[in-house]
């Protein structure tokens, strides 16, 4: 039976194995090899060794582009997690109206990114957008948002919070998994609501926070759609993926773009490993 199950197991996972070889392993190896070649239009590519990588690191723009990517991930991810958790705490009760509020907060997160960008381009328009009307009414003046190189990245961070309902929903699932008896025991011991949050809720949510954090950082570093459709002035919002896309498909520098994409991969791999290792210090798994 054991041997039969092993063979059947292999048969069942065979679509994945084929897929991983054809659509992941092969492209990855091919991509690495591409990064050592120079694309020359109609001519066959020429082997240039580490030339693309050297060029990438010598280019002044590279630092700006990776800074833009990190700026977004470092700001948008923690803010998103804190907001998501805060809203989940606000919604985690048995009041009848909670369902309605939950729906209203969750739904923007399912709006397709392109549609979201279109909506926010108008909303944040410095000429008559509703945000402009509000900031002027509050005496905050008329910020240029995407038109202002100092504000453009921050604008994406603000836009991203509209989609915070997705993590709110995941946190709600996590909250509902915490046994009520823990809170009852803590209340008998005289723990107040703040103490209960820090001693029960937060520690037991750390696995949820951890996975949300990991996925959000990986996703945040790959920001594309907003930065591509609605870029800020000069290169103030060019993210690594936008630059890779443009190098490959606008300037046809496939080798250079591949090198940049390999660096992005190594960065994400490194950061993921660091997050994964440090989780042991702060993530609490119930046994």
């Amino acid at each position: 039976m054991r041997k039969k199950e092993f063979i059947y197991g292999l048969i069942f996972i065979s679509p994945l194995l084929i897929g991983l070889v054809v659509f992941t392993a092969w492209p990855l190896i091919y991509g690495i090899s591409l990064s050592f070649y120079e694309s020359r239009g109609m001519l066959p590519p020429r082997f240039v060794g580490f030339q693309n990588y050297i060029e990438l690191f010598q280019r002044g723009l590279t630092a700006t582009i990776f800074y833009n990517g990190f700026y977004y991930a470092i700001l948008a991810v923690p803010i998103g997690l804190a907001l998501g958790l805060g809203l989940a705490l606000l919604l985690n009760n048995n009041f009848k109206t909670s369902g309605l509020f939950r729906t209203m907060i969750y739904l923007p997160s399912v709006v397709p990114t392109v549609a979201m960008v279109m909506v926010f381009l108008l909303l944040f328009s410095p000429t008559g957008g509703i945000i402009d009307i509000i900031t002027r009414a509050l005496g905050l003046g008329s910020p240029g948002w995407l038109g202002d190189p100092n504000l453009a990245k921050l604008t994406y961070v603000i836009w991203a919070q509209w989609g915070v309902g997705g993590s709110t929903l995941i946190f709600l699932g996590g909250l509902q998994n915490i046994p009520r008896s823990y809170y009852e025991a803590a209340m008998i011991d005289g723990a107040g609501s703040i103490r209960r949050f820090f001693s029960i809720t937060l520690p037991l949510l750390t696995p949820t926070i951890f996975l949300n954090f990991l996925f959000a950082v990986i996703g945040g570093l790959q920001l594309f759609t907003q930065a591509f459709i609605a870029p800020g002035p000069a290169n103030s919002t060019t993210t690594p993926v936008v630059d890779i896309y443009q190098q490959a498909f606008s300037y046809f520098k496939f080798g250079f773009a591949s090198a940049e994409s390999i660096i992005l991969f190594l960065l994400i791999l490194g950061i993921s490993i660091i997050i994964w290792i440090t989780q042991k210090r702060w993530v609490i798994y119930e046994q």
Partner: protein
Amino acid sequence: MNNKKKYKKIIWLIALIAVSSVFVLPLLTTFLDALKTTSEYYLNPNPFILSGGAHWDNFIKIFSEMPFFRELGYSTLYASLSTIGVVLSSSLVAYGFSVMRWPGRDKLFFIFLAFSTMIPGITLTLPLYQIFKSFGWLNTYLPLIVPAYFGGGMFNIFIFRQFFRQIPISYVEAARLDGANEFYIFYRIMLPLARPALAVVSIFQFFGAWGDYMGPLIYITDNHLYPLSVGIQMFEAVPNTSGVTPWPYIMVASLYMAIGPIIVFALIQKQIIQGLNFQGSIT
């Protein structure tokens, strides 16, 4: 005590009304902007001022103003065909990773899962573009659909695997004693029991493809083949004959694009809360 509870509830209510109106405001202004004519929008962009009344016919006129039907068709085609592939193949693979017992199974699963989340999409897209180019697949939807049939994504496999693990193994063993083969057990016993996972995976995949922007942007170069996501953006990027961007129509198109996911996800929120539970899932 009772009074204190009442106050708490009122404060809670006010806080949530304030928060949720912030979330709903963009949808409301989009809707109001969608009711203007383009010239009315440029005369007064404030969404709350409808100087010329509500032009409900914008929601119909869009079909002649932009190639909306065709783009809708391509979006639906891409979303449906990739969803079928993802559901078929991720459930099949998940069965091999949960019901079947073989040495190293769980380790291999998590290596695949971890690795696939850490490779940026673009790192694979550049070489895949060259590979699909050599297949002659550029300007077709094949690069976006065919890979879905080979594994269907580790995260979807993960969701099915979590579900299959909750189903008592005795069901499978009883069926085996009755002489059922593994494919029969998978198809007739396990898959019907995993209906919630089936719903969550197919809905996420469908609307993921529905909103996918980068995929079609890279592989589809003929603008007669664009799906809605790329079409809307081109509509914005390329102003109409009078040289202005027809914002009200773009808002109409955005609403049409968003309404499907909004309705479906509103209906399945509770299943998502239960189905996408990460707590203690890494074991």
